[in-house]
């Protein structure tokens, strides 16, 4: 017997609350652990605003956000771009923005997708748990915005803008990959601020002032240890702590950009999983709601249409192809894991002996908590999915005149394709490996970076621009060495004053 919550397409606040409550009840039965939700209704213009600030609910002012805003607005007005139905913020409470234009069905879908799918992922996944602090992020963003506008008042917009430009250029290299950063919160941040400024300055002074040259330069160069002793991959952190000429407020700005980059780092590593998890759950939650007679058939058809669009994967030769759709891959993998648990066949038992036939909710929960895209794919991508997606790998070696098809979806190729796809999502293989190698502490104070190319993939020519930005931060000459396989320096790019 059908007893639908609503029948029309129009949403109201009462209906949204009712849908949320019903979906929440089902989600709890499935054991989804979430932060409390804060649902905010916004207009299309506000959605464009949210886009421009890369989803940060509160952002400091910078021209690049204006650029993104203008670009999006332009495309949206010309009809070249649809807007996302929602944006969700990894915070506690979990903030989800819903668009005013959505139908009731879409609002329910978005609630299931964002407020329960993404929300539980943020709360459960190890990367988010380790690297971000959902409790404090909003406070921190408020602090950052205020701090930067204070700086603008005190030191001028242009000065701050230049500094931010330089920091943004290095934002991707301001991330700690292996050690957990301290949690951030506004109050502590402000309390520590004064203390830290004084301390940092004294540290820097220490480093530079105590280095009085004693031996001859040549001898010295041969003997002395590198500074830093070990190469540092977090360039921004290194700058923040060691750049000789930065003012305390400038160090603080570097730190802000670094912290925000750090906050987004897990999102970049879990796109497939995060979207897959959210799609999987919106599909299951809505279906469950339908099975209980709370939705109309019309609602369901509309839902299925949207759902299919979201998880569609165009083939490589389609005009709509733009890489592998993380929604499609993620959703297919999550669904496939459930299938392997519930209804395994011979192949599954051979490939996944430990999960075939196990409890699917526990298995999925485990997968969601303990992996990132790269490891998730290499762990769970099944031969059946490779066949369904008809995946094939192409090797592009610039020394060959032609591309080579290395593997296709057959017995011989499964493992190779799985590995290649996993690598594709491995940020450390896709971002150039550049580390701080040495500072000429007793000489001209120049900074040397080393780039170790992976598979001979060169750096894009934007790198010399980035070096200029780094030079601005460091204050002295900056050099980028490209290292060959045997550790020899292949080329040097220098940015001098």
């Amino acid at each position, binding site marked *: 017997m059908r007893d639908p919550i609503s029948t029309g397409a129009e949403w109201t606040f009462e209906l949204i609350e009712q849908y949320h409550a019903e979906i929440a009840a089902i989600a709890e039965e499935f054991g989804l652990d979430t932060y409390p939700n804060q649902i905010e209704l916004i207009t299309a213009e506000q959605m464009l605003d949210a886009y421009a600030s890369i989803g940060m609910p509160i952002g400091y002012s*910078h021209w690049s956000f204006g650029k993104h805003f203008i670009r999006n607005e332009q495309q949206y007005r010309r009809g070249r771009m649809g807007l996302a139905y929602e944006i969700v913020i990894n915070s506690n409470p979990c903030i989800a923005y819903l668009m005013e234009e959505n139908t009731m069905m879409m609002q329910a879908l978005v609630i299931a997708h964002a407020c329960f799918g993404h929300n539980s992922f943020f709360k459960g996944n190890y990367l988010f748990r380790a690297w971000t602090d959902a409790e404090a992020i909003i406070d921190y963003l408020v602090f950052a915005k205020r701090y930067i506008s204070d700086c603008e008042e005190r030191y001028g917009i242009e000065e701050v803008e230049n500094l931010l430009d330089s920091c943004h250029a290095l934002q991707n290299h301001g991330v700690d990959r292996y050690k957990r950063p301290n949690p951030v919160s506004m109050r502590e941040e402000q309390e520590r601020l004064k203390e830290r400024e004084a301390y940092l300055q004294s540290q820097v002074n220490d480093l530079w002032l105590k280095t009085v040259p004693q031996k001859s330069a040549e001898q010295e160069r041969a003997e002395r240890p590198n500074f830093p002793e070990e190469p540092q991959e977090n360039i921004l952190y290194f700058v923040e702590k060691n750049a000789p000429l930065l003012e305390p407020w400038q160090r603080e700005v570097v730190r802000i950009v670094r912290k925000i980059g750090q906050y987004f780092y897990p999102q970049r590593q879990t796109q497939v999983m995060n979207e897959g998890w959210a799609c999987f759950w919106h599909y299951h939650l809505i279906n469950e709601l339908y099975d209980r007679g709370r939705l109309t058939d019309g609602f369901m058809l509309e839902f299925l249409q949207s759902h299919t669009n979201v998880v569609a994967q165009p083939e490589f030769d389609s005009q709509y192809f733009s890489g592998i759709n993380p929604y499609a891959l993620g959703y297919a993998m999550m669904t496939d894991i459930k299938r392997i648990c519930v209804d395994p066949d011979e192949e599954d038992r051979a490939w996944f002996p430990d999960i075939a036939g196990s409890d699917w909710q526990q298995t999925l929960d485990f997968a969601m908590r303990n992996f990132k895209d790269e490891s998730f794919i290499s762990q769970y991508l099944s031969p059946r999915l490779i066949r369904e997606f008809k995946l094939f790998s192409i090797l592009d070696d610039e020394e060959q005149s032609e591309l080579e098809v290395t593997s296709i979806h057959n017995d011989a190729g499964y493992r190779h394709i799985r590995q290649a796809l996993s690598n594709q999502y491995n940020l450390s293989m896709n971002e150039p490996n550049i580390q701080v190698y040495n500072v000429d502490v007793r000489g001209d104070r120049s900074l040397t970076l080393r780039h170790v190319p992976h598979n001979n993939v060169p750096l894009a020519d934007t790198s010399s621009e980035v070096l200029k930005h780094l030079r601005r931060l460091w204050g002295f000459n900056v050099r980028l060495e490209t290292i060959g396989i045997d550790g020899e320096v292949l080329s040097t790019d220098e940015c001098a004053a």
Partner: protein
Amino acid sequence: MAQLIDRRPNSKGKSTVNRQRFLRRYKKQIKEAISEQISKRSVTDIDSGESVSIPTRDISEPTFRRDKGGVQEGVYPGNKEFAPGDRIKRPVNGGQGQGRRASDSGEGDDEFSFEISQDEYLDMLFDDLELPNLKKNQLRKMTRSRTVRAGFTNDGVPTNINIVRSLRSALSRRVAMGAEPRRRLRELEAEFEQLQQTVGVDEARCLELQQEIEALRLRLRKIPFIDTFDLRFNNFVQRPEPTAQAVMFCLMDVSGSMDRETKDIAKRFYILLYLFLTRSYRDVDVVYIRHHTRAKEVDEEEFFYSRETGGTIVSSALELTRDIIAQRYPPGDWNIYAAQASDGDNWNDDSPHCQQLLAKALLPQLRYYAYVEITRRDHQGLWEHYERLLDAHENFAMQQIREPADIYPVFREFFRKQAQ
């Protein structure tokens, strides 16, 4: 329980600051783009914003990125005919997937184009000039009377009869005048009818009734269909109104000595004047007169973009202006403005004649005459003769413009006097 917040009433301009930052940062490029476009734009086209393109490479945000090349392996969906070991020719542009992904990060398009609003456009156009609050500069306006409808009256000339209203009042008069007799008539007829039915007709009473009925019918027939009393006339009154129309004469020397830069400056000046006039008047006509030794009325296109060689006789343009005013723009009906742009050259014997023409024929008819000399050189003969007009005619002004930055100050100087 979820917290539900309606953010829609919040301001939507969260990105305005960032947008302004962007415009501020790329002011130079945007101004260049606008300078190029000003030549494509009509003087009278000031109500819209402008679409601006600036090169993407100028606004890109560099990061360390991997380039194409080396050994790269990618996985793609939708295999149809490939088998391991197949070799494919390398597609131009580096393959589908990679190529498009790169464009997300801001590469790929050569031009970054966007719209700016009218205000932003004017700001950029008259950069550093800070457009004045033009409304404060209320001009003394010509007044003329205009006929406007003013309801209806009971008397007037036959041409103004309002037929509907007249017939309506005739109808109500007929209803009013006939009501009493008609009621009486109905009563008598009923009585007469009853009398006929009864046995033993009262003949005398019947006759009496018949006569009375006849009299009433006659009385009803005598009510006139329409009476002079019914007539209604449309009423018109004359109301004095400020003239809402203005004409702006653009006079420009197009002899060989006027180069493109000079014309651009002149164009900006005309745009500013036009903008100023449209704030004060409803309709603004623009008349373009160009001259070398002979003057000619032309359209905007020809005005700014055709070049002539030869000497310069300014009076020819003044004469033509005078003639056009006489033919088409009676000074009683039009607020007439004229702006003359020139590099100052004139045939020497002509300058006194110009002075005469302006003083006698033109200035008495004009609201304002502005002369701009666009040159970096010293003043020429024309300037000296014009200078003599300044004291006697307060609606005459002249200024020199040396470079684009002078345009607005000069403009303000022109209109300062009238603001008082």
